[in-house]
Every structure is written in C-alpha cells, then in structure tokens.
C-alpha cells in the first residue's frame, strides 16, 4: 500500500473512534507539553546564564602574556620562561591570523591629567578595543561608541562625568584635553625618553558599568579612548620600565595582549594555539566547564521528568490500539480477504500510532509553549514588580526542540504501536471472518 493510502485509511479509522483517539492524542499532547516545558526551562536557564556571561565578553576573550613576564599567570606551565618568545608586533600579527580571532589589542593604561573647562583631574586612561562595543556594559552606553578605531574620541565613566558637570549627560559633545607622558625612543637601542604631550578629544559617550577589563582591571580607568588611538600616542606604560631593564632591543613588546574571538566557541582552539606558540594563555572557559556540566545534568533530569508523562501517554496508545484491534477484528479479516498483507495491516496500525504522535506532538508543543509564556510572564512580573529587576526570558523554545519533541512523540507512538500492530497482523482471517 502506498503511504498516502495508508494515512488516508488511518485518518478514517481514527475519525471512527473520535473520542477515544482524541483523548489518547491529548494524553500525548500533555506528555509532550511537560517534556517541552521542562526542557525549555533548562535551555532557557542555561541561555540566561550564558547570555549574562557571554555579554560580559569574558568567554570570548583569551589573555596572552609572555612567559618572560614576571606577572605570568600560567602557574602550571613547566616551560622555561627564557624559552618563551617576546610578545612583540610579530607575535601580535601571528595571533591575529588564528582562526576565529576578531581583534588582538594590547592593554594600554596610563595616568594622565584631564582638563575639562577649568576643571583639572588626575586620573587613569585606558584603551578600549573596537570589539568591546558588543559587551553588555558598553552596549548600554549613553551617547555612542567611538566612530572609528582611530577616532579622537573618549568615553567617560559616569561617576567621573559627574565631577565635571552636575548633569553628566551635558558633557557629551564637549572637548576634553588630555596631558600625558609620551615615550620617545632614545639614541641608543633600549633607551627612551619621556615627554609631556597634550591632545584634545571629543566626549561621545558615558558608561554606567565598567567594561570587562580582563586581568588587570582597566575598568578602574575613568577615561576610555580607542586602543589604536592610544597606541599611536605612545603612552608611557608602567611595564616600560620592566622592559627597559630586561630587553636587549628597542622593539616594542607588550605586557599583555587581549584576544577577542568571534564567538566563545573559538576560545579553546585559540588558547591551545597560543600555548603552542610558547606564550602563556588564559581564558575563563575553564571556569565555565563545571557550569556547563551542571546544566547538562539539569537538562537530563528535567528531560527524564518530562518524559514520564509521555511514557504514561504511550501506554494509553497501546491501550487504544489494542482496543482498536479487538474492535476491528472483522474489518482486519475483510482487509486480509481482499488482499491486504500482514505488513499492510501492520503499517496501518503504525500509521495510526504515528498520526496520534504527530498531532499529539504538535498540540503538545503548542501547549508547552503556552505554559512557557505563562511562566515567563509570571516570573517577569515577579522580577519587575517585586524585585525591581530587568525582565528576562527564562523560557526558550528553540526550533530544534519543537522538531525534536514532535519527532520524539512520533517515535514513542510508533514504538507503542509495535505490539498492537503485530497483534493485528497475526490475526487469522478465517477466525476473524467467522466472528459475528
């Protein structure tokens, strides 16, 4: 029998026992709904946690230092520090060429005097790479982000802006003069001199939260400028003195490079590649492993509890179909007399089971989705009204879960149909037709 006929006959048979099949299908729907509800909660919570952490930029970032550095963070490394190459422009280019790397930025920090109108402040200046604009804290910038990687623009910490103006927002668009120490290469290699310089910047944005600063907390800085602009200014760095003592050449080396990946998925690959280049590398990925394990276990348990209802529903399918076999004994006998093979009869019952699974699965996903919306609504009401916190989607129903849940419902239903289908196929037509 061709599939279309099979499903036409199955649909007809199901219409003939409408109430019974509808109830069984609803049973499957409730089972699928509970599964979808449980799993979406797990996925939603995981997504929520990931989102919060990812947005911080932590997991897309690998920090690279030379093992020559006294502040080397890679404590477990057994490599000899003197074998580690210098973290210079050459190394920076190589790291930037690794797959998945979006930007490699050095840490630029310097103390500077900042003049705004007639107010003068001594504060910390820091470079902020272009890739930081996707970070949560920077995304919420009041005003805007730098117009380009080399713009003469700055972002201010809101608290700092408050020192300058009563209404911090009014600093936007105003000019800021920065006085800083510039490092100028000296006559002999390895030596340099320091000169006082002045540069003007336009204030374009205010930051509420501190951008993710990595290991050294650039976030303590009050004034942020594009990293490339900062680099071109040849700011005197605290590490420069260390370099002066150790270095044999005058070439610039970095105390640390911050590598931003396109996504957290690359972090491990890049970390390994950098370690192969004999640098120290560190990411927060290691710290998240236990969190990911926790969510895997949580999802599993939620899935098991969710599946229980579906297991009960599958028993209802067995029951419904066994009833159908008994009820349609004669009909099965007639079909066999008309030339239906055992396989045709078997397939017909499988088609009925699959149809119930498909409809039940689809209804269940819809039901699960509604439950999810309700939980979202309820939890957001709580977060917003009582906790005064921003609303969050704790509930996510990804497309793969929709397809997976329906597929799983069909699979479970077909498995439940094995026994009734075999029983129907085994039916002796002579007996079935004699039966009045």
């Amino acid at each position, binding site marked *: 029998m061709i599939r279309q006929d099979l499903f036409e006959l199955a649909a007809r048979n199901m219409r003939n026992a409408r109430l019974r099949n509808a109830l069984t299908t609803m049973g499957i729907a409730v089972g699928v709904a509970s599964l979808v509800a449980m799993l979406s909660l797990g996925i939603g919570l995981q997504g929520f946690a990931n989102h919060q952490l990812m947005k911080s930029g932590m997991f897309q970032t690998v920090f690279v230092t030379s093992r020559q550095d006294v502040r080397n963070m890679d404590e477990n490394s057994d490599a000899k520090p003197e074998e580690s190459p210098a973290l210079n422009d050459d190394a920076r280019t190589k790291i930037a060429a690794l797959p998945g790397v979006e930007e490699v930025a050095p840490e630029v920090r310097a103390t500077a005097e900042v003049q705004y109108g007639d107010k003068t402040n001594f504060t910390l200046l820091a470079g902020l790479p272009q890739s930081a604009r996707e970070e949560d804290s920077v995304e919420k910038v009041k005003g805007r982000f730098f117009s380009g990687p080399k713009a003469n623009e700055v972002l201010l910490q809101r608290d700092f802006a408050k020192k300058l103006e009563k209404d911090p927002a009014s600093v936007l668009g105003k000019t800021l003069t920065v006085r800083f120490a510039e490092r100028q290469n000296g006559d002999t290699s390895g030596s340099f001199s320091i000169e006082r310089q002045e540069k003007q910047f336009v204030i374009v944005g205010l930051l509420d939260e501190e951008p993710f600063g990595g290991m050294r907390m650039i976030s303590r800085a009050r004034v942020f400028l594009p990293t490339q602009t900062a680099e071109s200014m040849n700011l005197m760095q605290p590490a420069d003195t260390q370099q002066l003592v150790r270095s044999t050449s005058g070439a610039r080396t970095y105390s640390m490079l911050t590598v931003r990946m396109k996504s957290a998925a690359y972090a491990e690959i890049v970390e390994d590649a950098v370690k192969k280049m004999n640098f120290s590398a560190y990411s927060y990925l290691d710290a998240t492993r236990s969190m990911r394990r926790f969510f895997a276990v949580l999802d599993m348990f939620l899935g098991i509890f969710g599946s229980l209802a579906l297991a009960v529903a599958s028993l209802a399918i067995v029951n419904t179909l066994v009833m159908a076999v008994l009820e349609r004994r004669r009909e099965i006998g007639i079909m066999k*007399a008309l030339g*239906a093979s055992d396989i045709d009869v078997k397939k017909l019952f499988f088609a009925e089971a699959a149809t119930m699974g498909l409809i039940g699965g689809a209804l269940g996903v819809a039901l699960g989705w509604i439950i999810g919306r309700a939980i979202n609504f309820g939890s957001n009401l709580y977060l917003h009204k009582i906790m005064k916190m921003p609303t969050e989607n704790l509930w996510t129903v990804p497309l793969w879960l929709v397809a997976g849940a329906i597929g799983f419902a069909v699979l479970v239903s077909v498995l439940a149909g094995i026994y009734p289908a075999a029983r129907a196929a085994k039916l002796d037509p002579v007996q079935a037709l004699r039966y009045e």
Partner: protein
Amino acid sequence: MNEETAAAIESQGASRYYTMGDTTVHAVENVSFSIRRGDFAALLGPSGSGKSTLLNLLAGLDRLSTGCIVVDGRDLSTMDSEALARYRRLTVGMIFQSFNLIPTMTLADNIELPLRFAETPRAERHDRVLELLTNVGLAHRAKHRPTELSGGEQQRAAIARALANRPSVLLADEPTGNLDSRNGQEVMALLQDLNERVGVTILMVTHDPSLAAHYARQSLHMADGKLVTEVEAER
C-alpha cells in the same frame, strides 16, 4: 498451457486438519477435483461438511495441511504469506453470506479498498470504482454506507468489490443465504451474467441443491470433509 482447456482450479489430495486437544479434526480430507476456466461450479453439502474450509483454502485465507491446490497456474501450497496476500488481491475475488462490507465506509470506499492494496494509481481508481458500481447497477449509491442499502444491493456492491482487481476466479460463500428470494435471484442473475459475459470462473458454496441445479454447470458434493460425488449438469 492452453488457455481454453487449462483448469482454473485444480485440487489434488487437499487436506486440512485441526488439532483440538488430543484429537485431530479432518475438516477437509484428501479432496481432488478440477474446475475448468470460465466454469460456474457449486460446492454443496450440509453444515460442517467442510465446504467453507475448502473455500477458505481456495481463497488463500487458510493453509493446506497436505496436498496441493493450483489456481490459475499457481500452486498455493508453496506460497508464503506475502505471496498468498498478493494471490488474494489479484487472482481471486471473494463474496460472503454476510456481505462483509466495511460499515463505516461508503460503497465507493469499500470498492476502492482492494485497489488501494493493489497500489492502482490514484488517477485510475475513481473511474474504475464508478465502472464497477455501474456494472452492478449501483452508481447512484456510491456515497451511501452499506447500512443504508438493502441486502441485495449490499451483496451486489460486495461482488463489485470482489471484481475490483479483475480476478480470474470468484469464490462465493452462500451468497444468497442472507437474502430474500427476489434479492437472491437478482444476485444469482448478476453472477450468471458475469460468468457468461466477463468469463470469470465462479465457485459457489451453497446448501441449496436447487440453486446449484439451476445455475451451476458442475456440482461438488461434500460430506464429513470428503468429496462425495462430482456432478456435471448438462446445460
């Protein structure tokens, strides 16, 4: 094999035993006979004589214990269940005393059923169903359910269904048993017409000797599972 002279049904030592506890019941025992192509034969005998069992064996619904039955050149004793299903689908048509139309289906759906099993292309089916219904004079009843029809109409619909895949042999189990005499005559006239016009070989089980004498050219008599006499009517 010569189409004209070859037997439509050939039975040699066909037997069917049932074991019931310690005893073995010989429902059909060592039955040999032959029915010519295009013939109209009757199988007579009292209740429990084994005629229904023999018919089920011929229909491919039951399996022989020993012996062999060859229908249309095919030996049923060597077929597996899949081959037997194909045989029931294409080679034989069957009609029953109680019609056995599926009550939840319309006549058209009932008649389409064997076409579905035979995987007849969907485009051809509609016309074929209409043609079959027209042949038995029920085209106007296509959308009716069996319970809305008289017994005679139901049996005619069952005949149309049995002929859906153009079988060469039609097996009828007491086709008029549940009908009044007028409807019974109508059904018998239809069977006779099909036999003569279409050339389908008919084997009809009946306990009514006058029916056999009136319509059949060959009569097989059974008693206690054995073939007693074989009578050929001179018509």
